[in-house]
């Protein structure tokens, strides 16, 4: 630990990285066509090519199909490369690096269905995998976003998806686990296919639908409600291919119609996730242990820590997971490296230094326009050269040029160089949406010593080439209109200064459950003062009610240890019976007032972590509260752990799933209940193997490795019976052969008949529900809630533990119901994100914020009412009450501008002057 020497083998690219400009001339001239790996080998690429259109780095490489590398022939690329960047003599390089920690983020490999004859993959042209289909859907895909069949290049109209390919099966070559992502990605593909072709007839052959994640249930409904979309619950095989049409026949069986065969134009195999192909090699090299499935072995109480000290794991090498989990486990690996390496933080890094800013505010605007081809994204539709010509004709424009990818490193450098060379003082890049790349382009100005706000972005991709791809001439005209508007605005832009704020190094953690405590400990271990706030008398949260887990964790033992660590940690201050009474301040500088066992406190902190947890639904269904033999699953667990014989000695026990959720009131899945019920069933079977246990379910959602426990329960004769929500089970008190029972009756769809079960105990999988006080917390900390009243992250995929409000982070079940290891993963993730703030001395906030022209303000308060960030205060002046914007809190959304009756409040960088000049330019013709 702390001292790794790693030998890397750097493969030759045969292209000198510093010289390649990504112009792709070599690609044009290369005579070798070779299946394109990035496009799943559906289309061809050249032996020399750029991996994909937006690749980073955006430079070419030569693969093993090169004629010179194979037969010492050709060398055309060398001759055509103007940058002299081709080096066919390049050799693999050995490189030694020394590091103190290692993060394994190797990801997954997809299951290869050609290993199994039964799906026809590789034999039948129109059987594709879901990854193939993903490329077919994509604008940068093999047919540029057209879904075509390989056999005849025609649009398939009737498409079938087969779920669980390679997953949830114990046959050799398959994976016994559930791949966790396929149900939802298939629904996505169905929705997108309907976007491509509204008349398409789509069928999904599935087992359980596992929409267990945040907002997944609604997504499933969205897919299912589309016209001509069928979801059919059936095992399926690909039976044959029509030799003429190359259509594919699928055999399946339904309860109503028995076995059938149906013809489809295309069949998509929803392939599962394998561990990385070289998992054994990884284990040997890094000294880590693996699970039986080849994923990285880790403890349930820290899924990021491998068995090899100093080696951490994030992403799908932990096991199948989706993107947000891959992101927050990565941040979690970050914080764990930090715990190890805090002592040397900052020693090897260097601050970036920009040249001093020139004052050009008195100069006449000299605008440079750079028009991006975006590969073919823009260039294929918009006539870029004539647009450059046009730009040169506009007022104040002194320079214009085209670029293949303006965002490529070399192009960005070119912008900087051109600014200096031509003395530009304003820059317009006509390319894509400012959302992703504006920061990069602003940076090119800073590099050239210009204020970064002298920049405007003309979006000629999303707003033009993408939405009018068929109308080339009109698109070119529109691109020119957009550029004319941008140029007009650029002339009015003002230099703005960003503000550097100090960062208070302490953090506040709201919620003392497993997530809150884990997050607090990780930050405290890196030298940060932590204030941990718990509403109840004791730390522990919902985990206080759990006793054992499927993976064998003694929850109370673990919890006691965690609580002890928290109390013993000198940097953690615990506030119990606490309530947050006031929260003010902003990123790096929050002030929160509490009342707690310690009396009233005022805490200053730089970051906030919201880990307030959840509640459990109190059922009104199935005689709960009326008959004491009806329990929730948490009550059952409590009774089992107490050894209550009324429970452990029951002859028959029935568990009913989905009580209080997946319905109109709560349109989401509580995620944990299927596994919790199976956990309790296995525990009961262990104590009393004779007990008859029935689990009445809608879909069993034992995603990922939890699937193995579902199989184990079935093998131990736990009976799983599916019910439909329209026809839920009925529970009534009755007698069976003189024994008082709860009679549970329901329709068994497999047997096709009504069942009546005489149960001694009925347990209900009561929904996990958001806390009542989530609304108060959300208002106090100025963060939002989603449609189901769980806390809403900044971005579902890419910022899963950040809030839109800077400096506030989210973890645990407050985000959405989840199992203990998942909450721990996420808690480390939130700590990791908080550390990216807390480990710096300053934080920079945008210069594009609102300001008030005081003489015009009447102090009416309309602006403050609409400000969701609480950035506007009122101050008494000699001329009455006036609004004042705190520029640090203001996010520049401009809501207040629209409300202000006198136009006193304005948003810098989006002033009336700037916007009106743009509108005038729109209506003016060139």
């Amino acid at each position, binding site marked *: 630990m702390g001292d790794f020497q790693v030998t890397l083998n750097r493969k030759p690219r045969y292209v000198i990285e510093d010289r390649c400009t990504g112009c792709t001339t070599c690609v044009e001239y290369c005579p070798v066509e070779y299946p394109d790996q990035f496009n799943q080998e559906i289309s061809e690429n050249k032996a020399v090519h750029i991996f994909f259109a937006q690749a980073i780095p955006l430079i070419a490489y030569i693969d093993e199909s090169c004629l010179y590398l194979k037969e010492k022939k050709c060398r055309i690329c060398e001759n055509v490369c103007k940058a002299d960047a081709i080096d066919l003599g390049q050799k693999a390089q050995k490189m030694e690096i020394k590091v103190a920690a290692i*993060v*394994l983020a*190797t990801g997954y490999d997809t299951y290869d269905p050609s290993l199994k004859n039964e799906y026809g993959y590789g034999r039948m042209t129109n059987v594709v995998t879901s990854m193939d289909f993903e490329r077919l859907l994509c604008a940068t895909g093999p047919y540029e976003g057209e879904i075509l069949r390989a056999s005849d290049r025609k649009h398939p109209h009737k498409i079938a998806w087969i779920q669980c390919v390679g997953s949830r099966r114990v046959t050799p070559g398959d994976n016994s686990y559930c791949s966790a992502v396929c149900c939802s990605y298939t629904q996505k593909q169905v929705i997108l296919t309907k976007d491509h072709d509204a008349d398409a007839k789509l069928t999904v052959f599935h087992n359980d639908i596992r929409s267990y994640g945040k907002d997944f249930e609604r997504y499933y409904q969205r897919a299912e409600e589309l016209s001509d979309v069928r979801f059919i619950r059936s095992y399926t095989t690909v039976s044959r291919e029509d030799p003429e049409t190359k259509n594919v026949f699928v055999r399946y069986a339904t309860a109503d119609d028995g076995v059938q065969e149906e013809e489809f134009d295309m069949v998509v195999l929803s392939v599962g996730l394998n561990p990385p192909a070289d998992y054994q090699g990884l284990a040997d090299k890094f000294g880590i242990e693996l699970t039986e499935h080849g994923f990285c072995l880790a403890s349930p109480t820290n899924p990021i820590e491998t068995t090899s000290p100093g080696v951490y794991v994030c992403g799908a090498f932990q096991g199948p997971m989706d993107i947000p989990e891959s992101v927050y486990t990565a941040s979690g690996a970050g914080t764990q490296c930090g715990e190890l390496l805090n002592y040397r933080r900052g020693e090897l890094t260097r601050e970036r230094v920009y040249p001093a800013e020139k004052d050009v505010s008195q100069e006449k605007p000299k605008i440079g326009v750079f028009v991006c081809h975006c590969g073919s994204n823009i260039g294929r539709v918009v006539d870029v050269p004539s647009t450059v010509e046009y730009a040169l004709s506009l007022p104040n424009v002194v320079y214009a040029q085209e670029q293949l990818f303006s965002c490529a490193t070399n192009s960005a450098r070119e912008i900087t160089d051109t600014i200096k060379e031509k003395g530009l003082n304003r820059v317009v890049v006509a390319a894509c949406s400012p959302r992703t790349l504006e920061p990069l382009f602003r940076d090119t100005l800073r590099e050239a010593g210009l204020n970064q706000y002298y920049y405007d972005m003309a979006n000629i991709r999303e707003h033009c080439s993408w939405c009018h791809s068929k109308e080339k001439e009109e698109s070119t005209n529109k691109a020119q209109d957009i550029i004319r508007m941008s140029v007009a605005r650029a002339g009015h832009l003002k230099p703005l200064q960003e503000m550097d704020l100090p960062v208070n190094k302490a953090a506040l953690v709201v919620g003392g459950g497993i997530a809150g405590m884990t997050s607090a400990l990780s930050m405290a271990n890196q030298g940060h003062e932590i204030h941990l706030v718990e509403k109840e008398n004791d730390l522990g949260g919902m985990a206080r009610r759990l006793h054992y887990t499927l993976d064998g964790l003694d929850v109370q033992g673990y919890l006691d240890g965690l609580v002890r660590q928290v109390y013993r940690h000198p940097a953690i201050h615990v506030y119990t019976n606490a309530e947050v009474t006031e929260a003010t301040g902003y990123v790096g500088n929050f002030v929160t007032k509490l009342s707690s066992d310690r009396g009233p406190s005022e805490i200053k902190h730089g970051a906030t972590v919201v880990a307030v947890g959840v509640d459990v639904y109190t059922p009104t269904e199935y005689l709960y509260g009326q008959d004491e033999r009806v329990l929730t699953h948490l009550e059952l667990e409590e009774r089992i752990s107490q050894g209550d014989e009324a429970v452990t000695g029951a002859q028959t026990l029935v568990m009913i799933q989905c009580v209080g959720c997946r319905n109109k009131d709560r349109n989401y899945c509580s995620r944990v209940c299927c596994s919790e019920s199976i956990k309790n069933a296995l525990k009961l079977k262990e104590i009393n193997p004779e007990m008859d246990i029935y689990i009445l379910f809608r879909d069993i959602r034992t995603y990922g490795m939890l699937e193995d426990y579902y199989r184990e329960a079935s093998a131990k004769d736990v009976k799983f019976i599916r019910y439909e929500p329209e026809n839920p089970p009925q529970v009534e008190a009755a007698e069976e052969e003189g024994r008082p029972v709860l009679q549970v009756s329901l329709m068994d769809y497999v047997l096709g008949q009504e069942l009546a079960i005489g149960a001694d105990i009925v347990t209900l999988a009561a929904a996990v529900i958001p806390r009542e006080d989530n609304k108060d917390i959300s208002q106090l900390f100025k963060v939002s809630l989603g449609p189901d009243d769980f806390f809403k992250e900044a971005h579902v995929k890419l910022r899963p533990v950040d809030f839109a409000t800077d400096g506030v982070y989210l973890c645990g079940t407050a985000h959405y119901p989840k199992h203990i290891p998942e909450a721990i993963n996420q808690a480390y993730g939130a700590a*990791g994100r908080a550390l*990216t703030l807390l480990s710096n001395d300053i934080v920079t906030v945008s210069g594009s914020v609102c300001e008030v022209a005081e003489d015009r303000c009447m102090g009416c308060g309309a602006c403050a009412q609409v400000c969701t960030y609480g950035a506007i205060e009122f101050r008494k002046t000699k001329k009455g009450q006036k609004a004042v914007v705190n520029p640090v809190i203001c996010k520049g959304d401009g809501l207040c501008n629209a409300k202000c009756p006198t136009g006193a409040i304005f948003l810098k960088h989006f002033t009336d002057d700037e916007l009106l000049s743009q509108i005038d330019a729109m209506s003016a013709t060139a």
Partner: protein
Amino acid sequence: METETAQLLKIPADGNYGDVMVLGGGISGIQASLDLATAGYKVYLVEKSPAIGGHMSQLDKTYPTNDCSM
């Protein structure tokens, strides 16, 4: 220019010493590298293919918002 690029990548001039090696340049490896670098650590990000991005760069869109994956 080269020195400026080095600053961008936070590479010190001296030797092959780093704080952390991140193996794999997919979404998880990229996030880990960014967080670590922002928190003040020198990172080596090691990727086997010619570009970073991993499987996510191959996806068209992402569920459940249908946001562009690229």
